[in-house]
């Protein structure tokens, strides 16, 4: 039971719509975990279940060892939650709102002032502390939301899309803030942008269509996919029989040291061949020979590292797009 957040077989139906399909993952103490997935993948649903706002249809989730359904109050007391779009009361002043939330979150009356001062300082809200929340810019509202989630100094922070709608400078600022939180808190933040997660998180849970597609530390994931691919752009002289694009891919696939070939037709009629080498092999010379032997035109040959971005795209774009269009 060591994990701070433990989710097992979580399933959620909204009427006839399946939002979450047997999701399981864990978050260890002190990690900053990015909950990554395209819009509508079930991120917000999962976070709402974890915070006790919605119950799951089936499955189990525990935060800090407490069941989210049976010990909802204990769970809610141990998390700071910032929902998507940061809902706030527009008619309250920043300071007043934070004081109010401190009381709601069991901060004893005598400590409320210091708690408010601490988060105002931490989230750099000093200049707007007397302003009405309704008059704040999006960036400040976001910071008020963060300050609010920190007010009771909870061990777990759950942030739904914390940087959405911010300008680049503000995004930078919020990222710094979140990173600095990782020292004392366990953070689970959702995002639909990989770059976001890469910059702030140590671990990632990728969710697509309500299922957990991949989990692990970013470093491990990079290692796993850091394989090279060779990109070739070739064209056969027109009119020669038996030299169709499929035949090209087949010929390249027979080169020793090539494990897999994926072919895409470019818009200008050239063929792009993505060649995955077998482990440890370097088929570049063999590729050259094939091109020369067959008399193809070659305009590009380069090595490419597969990126996390590519992996994420593959996972989230659904099955159809990840199949090689014509493999050898």
């Amino acid at each position: 039971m060591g994990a701070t957040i433990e989710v097992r077989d979580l399933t959620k139906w909204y009427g006839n719509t399946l939002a979450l399909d047997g999701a399981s993952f864990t978050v260890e103490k002190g990690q900053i975990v990015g909950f990554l997935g395209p819009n509508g993948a079930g991120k917000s649903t999962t976070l709402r279940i974890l915070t006790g706002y919605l119950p799951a249809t089936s499955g189990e989730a525990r935060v800090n060892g407490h069941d989210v359904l049976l010990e909802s109050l204990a769970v809610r007391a141990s998390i700071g939650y910032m929902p998507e779009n940061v809902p706030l009361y527009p008619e309250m002043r920043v300071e007043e709102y934070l004081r109010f939330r401190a009381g709601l979150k069991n901060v004893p009356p005598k400590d409320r002032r210091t708690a408010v001062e601490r988060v105002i300082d931490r989230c750099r809200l000093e200049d707007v502390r007397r302003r009405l929340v309704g008059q704040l810019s999006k960036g400040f509202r976001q910071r008020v939301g963060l300050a609010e989630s920190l007010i009771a100094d909870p061990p777990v922070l759950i942030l739904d899309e914390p940087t959405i709608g911010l300008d680049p400078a503000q995004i930078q600022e919020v990222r710094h803030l979140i990173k600095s939180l990782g020292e004392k808190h366990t953070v689970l933040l959702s995002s639909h942008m990989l770059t976001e997660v890469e910059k702030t998180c140590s671990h990632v849970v990728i969710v697509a269509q309500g299922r957990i597609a991949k989990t692990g530390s970013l470093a491990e994931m990079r290692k796993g996919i850091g394989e090279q691919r060779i990109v070739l752009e070739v064209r056969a002289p027109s009119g020669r029989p038996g030299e169709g694009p499929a035949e090209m891919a087949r010929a390249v696939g027979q080169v020793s040291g090539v494990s897999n070939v994926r072919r895409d037709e470019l818009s200008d009629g050239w063929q792009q061949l993505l060649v995955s080498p077998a482990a440890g092999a370097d088929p570049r010379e063999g590729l050259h020979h094939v091109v020369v032997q067959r008399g193809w035109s070659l305009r590009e040959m380069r090595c490419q590292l597969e990126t996390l971005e590519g992996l994420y795209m593959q996972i989230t774009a659904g099955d159809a797009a990840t199949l090689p269009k014509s493999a050898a």
Partner: protein
Amino acid sequence: MAKILLLARREISSYFVSPIAYVAMALFLVISGFFFALADFRPGQPAAMRSIFDVMMIILVFVIPIVTMRSLSEERRTGTLETLLTAPVTDTEVVLAKFLGSWLFYLAMLAPTLLYLVLLRVFGSPEYGPVASGYLGLALLGMLYVAVGVFASSLTSNQVIAAVTGFAILVVLAMLAPWMASVVPAPWRSIIREASVRTHYTDFSQGVVDLVHVVYFVALAAYILFLTVKALESRRWR
């Protein structure tokens, strides 16, 4: 309990910065002042507030839903309901705080009508007993109406729909029930009459405080607040 007070305090202060609450308050004072001048504050009339107490039962049917319409529906619309219900507070605490906040605002709205009493005192010598029981009746009446208003507000994220729903329930309870009692067959008659607000309210303005009437208002309000908690919890199984 501390959390209920904290939430209720926020509720009241949000009323005092909301223009709609002031509009409702002004509406209430204008109409009730009008009726006071017309019915009670006239030469030859006994120095009492009986007519105005009776007519308030009708005025408030229109005014209270406007006051309470935003209490939960606004939170639902802006999403603050999510931050509220993911804080360590129970749904019951939230509902009781919403009710308490709105009811205290209602009492504050009644306060200026004490001026009528001052006027009566200047020009005559009012009997204080019936006035006191009349205000007790108003406080209890408000309890029921505010509970209905908060309940209506818990059903929707649209303030207008909340106001109309609350208004419709109150029209049936306070205005249609006496008429319905007169048209339904005999066995139903007494049931509907007993459920009607009028049956239990008019005694107060005549200086009679009957425990049955007090129980009617408190119990019905409590039941409606219970339904409100259930409506709030319905997000869990809808």
